[in-house]
């Protein structure tokens, strides 16, 4: 996927003026936060579960190598194969090799953000293997040659009409604006693909070390058809998703759906362990787990380690006022919203994504709703620290802060600066009490008035009273 994170401001401008997108984003705001709140209210233990989940994730990361070894051992014991991929490139090649060994022409795919991260579809296609997205949202995007704007609801940026148009064009049927009819169409179209695909690729929400199992949590059932019908099942996942036991996985399952969509539980939570057993009459004959690192191991032991707790629920973006204003594609790469603003610089470089961790008011709503209590504002601030250290902060901002800090570290001079600014603003504001246009403050006065100071500075007046 083309990286466009440094066009954030331009993309934001377009997004804010895109009436259709704004309507679509309204659907998100009206849905997820309220549903999450209702689900949380029904489970009095929710916050205690979050504490345990945070602690368990920390424990896992502190023992990540050992749990991964245990997971690998058990996948192999069950007849599966584990592939370790340090980079996105490694992962793409590994997956293509598996497909080629099966002489695969078509590959069905369940929803997987890691395969977006490694840009798998483009690669398979370029190498003669046709990927077919089967999640309804992803299917719509594939028809439109589009990319996800949200990690759980990938097509949230589209309207009913966008979908109707895409289906009409590709399915060659009369255009319908009934979502039920559209879904029925997708069901029919994909049914053939499920049955005829040579390989099925899914992601995994968790990897269970104890059993060597992987689990997907879905609502549509497409992931289950994807992984049950073809001869080969490839799970593409990432190293931080390992958990010790089924009991530990359960802790996260109690949090995941409630945090994501506000459901009590996703409809299908499905564990896969190895290939089909000898006497089984269906299920895949081959089971591969492709474990992607792609920068994650580099976060261990750094100030970004806490980000490895993320379980990809999307609560942070569902509640983020910035995401809600500009949508996910404005972020210019795979992972949007607050979690993306922390993860993206790690994966594509801070020099290619510096605008993301800056695009936050640090309002803290994301941290407030995070099921594993990741301090997202703090981590975004750490990226700003890195930018400052590497002199990537824009020159104007850097010198602005420099000059301001020079005064702030000298109280007497700072008094004079406040005094003169106060006087200046009072003169400009006059008796109107506010300023409509101010040179060099266009960022403020283009959109709002600036209230003028109501009198001399407090420090001046305080001195006058004391003397």
């Amino acid at each position, binding site marked *: 996927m083309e990286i466009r994170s440094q066009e954030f401001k331009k993309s934001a401008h377009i997004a804010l003026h895109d009436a259709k997108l704004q309507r679509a984003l309204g659907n998100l705001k009206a849905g997820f936060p309220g549903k999450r709140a209702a689900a949380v209210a029904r489970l009095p233990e929710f916050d205690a579960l979050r504490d345990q989940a945070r602690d368990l994730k920390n424990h896992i990361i502190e023992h990540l190598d050992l749990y991964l070894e245990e997971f690998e051992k058990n996948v192999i014991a069950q007849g599966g194969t584990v592939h370790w991929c340090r980079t996105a490139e490694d992962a793409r090649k590994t997956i293509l090799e598996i497909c080629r060994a099966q002489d695969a022409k078509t590959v069905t795919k369940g929803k997987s953000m890691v395969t977006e991260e490694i840009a798998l579809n483009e690669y398979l296609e370029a190498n003669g293997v046709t990927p077919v997205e089967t999640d309804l949202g992803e299917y719509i995007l594939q028809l439109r040659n589009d990319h996800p704007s949200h990690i759980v609801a990938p097509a949230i940026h589209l309207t009913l009409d966008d979908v109707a148009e895409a289906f009409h064009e590709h399915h060659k049927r009369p255009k319908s604006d009934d979502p039920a009819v559209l879904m029925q169409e997708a069901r029919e179209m994909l049914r053939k693909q499920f049955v005829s695909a040579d390989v099925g690729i899914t992601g995994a929400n968790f990897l269970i070390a104890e059993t060597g199992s992987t689990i997907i949590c879905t609502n549509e059932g497409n992931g289950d058809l994807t992984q049950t019908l073809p001869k080969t099942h490839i799970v593409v996942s990432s190293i931080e998703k390992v958990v010790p036991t089924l009991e530990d996985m359960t802790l996260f399952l109690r949090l995941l759906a409630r945090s994501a969509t506000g459901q009590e539980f996703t409809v299908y939570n499905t564990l896969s362990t190895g290939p089909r057993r000898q006497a089984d009459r269906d299920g895949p004959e081959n089971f591969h787990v492709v474990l992607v690192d792609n920068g994650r191991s580099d976060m261990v032991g750094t100030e970004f380690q806490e980000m490895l707790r993320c379980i990809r629920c999307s609560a942070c973006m569902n509640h983020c006022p910035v995401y809600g204003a500009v949508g996910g594609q404005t972020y210019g790469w795979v992972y949007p919203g607050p979690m993306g603003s922390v993860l993206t610089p790690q994966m594509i470089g801070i020099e290619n994504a510096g605008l993301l961790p800056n*695009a936050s*008011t640090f309002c803290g709503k994301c941290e407030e709703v995070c099921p594993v209590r990741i301090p997202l504002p703090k981590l975004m601030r750490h990226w700003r620290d890195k930018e400052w250290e590497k002199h990537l902060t824009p020159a104007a*901002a850097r010198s602005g802060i420099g000059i301001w800090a020079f005064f702030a570290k000298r*109280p007497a001079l*700072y008094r004079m600066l406040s005094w003169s600014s106060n006087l200046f603003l009072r003169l400009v504001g006059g008796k109107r009490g506010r300023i409509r246009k101010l040179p060099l403050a266009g960022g403020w006065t*283009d959109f*709002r008035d600036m209230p003028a100071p109501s009198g001399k500075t*407090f420090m001046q*007046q305080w001195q006058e009273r004391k003397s």
Partner: protein
Amino acid sequence: MANPRPRVGLFVTCLADMFRPEVAFASVKLLELAGFEVEVPKRQTCCGQPAFNSGDRKDSADIARQTIEAFDGFEYVVGPSGSCIGMLHHYPELFVESDPWHQRALDLKARAFEITSFLALHLDMDKLSSSFTGKVTYHDSCSGLRELGVKKQPRELLSKLPGVQISEMEEAETCCGFGGTFCVKYPEISNRMVGNKSENIRATGADTLLGGDLGCLLNMVGKLKREGIEVKARHVVEVLADMLDSPAIGEAEQGV
């Protein structure tokens, strides 16, 4: 004196100093009403948040040391802003644990309070009286709300004033889009956020918007004015201290 009154150092905050001195005077008045001796240390400047949030940790640490020294010896440090006091609570992050300044920063953190949460702890609320009458709506500023747990306190204090009728807005806890330097770095997004906010304020039918942070208030007032929405705005301490002689924030002087 047999029983000297405990000393509070007032953290004035840049915005109160420069834009709204009434807020600092009201704070002094309320702290005195609660029985404290209030002083205003001269060596204070800014809390350092603009540098901290821009990634400039060196200047942040320099400013933190200066602030810690300025407020040495006070039993409490109180300021009329959840955001600035929240920054004081971040100071320990600026020093490694082996650095003696780390302990001093922790010590300051333990003494530093946002004004309404401090008053809720220390003021006999029956002493409050205000001539204010009207329907108000209250914006919960993010730092105070999420870093310091300021939510009930201002409402409890306001509930003691018979002239105040509170009408809560939709999304009172959603960010107004100020975000310090955010509002000038990403002005269009900030504008969208404050636009949503002013719509929610208007919808309450309140005549006055109250809040505990001048940054957010200046942002919201600026937008309300630009959109021609007739809602006045004050910092909550102005109402609590009955200091209502000045025009509301951004309002013209009487007779203009």
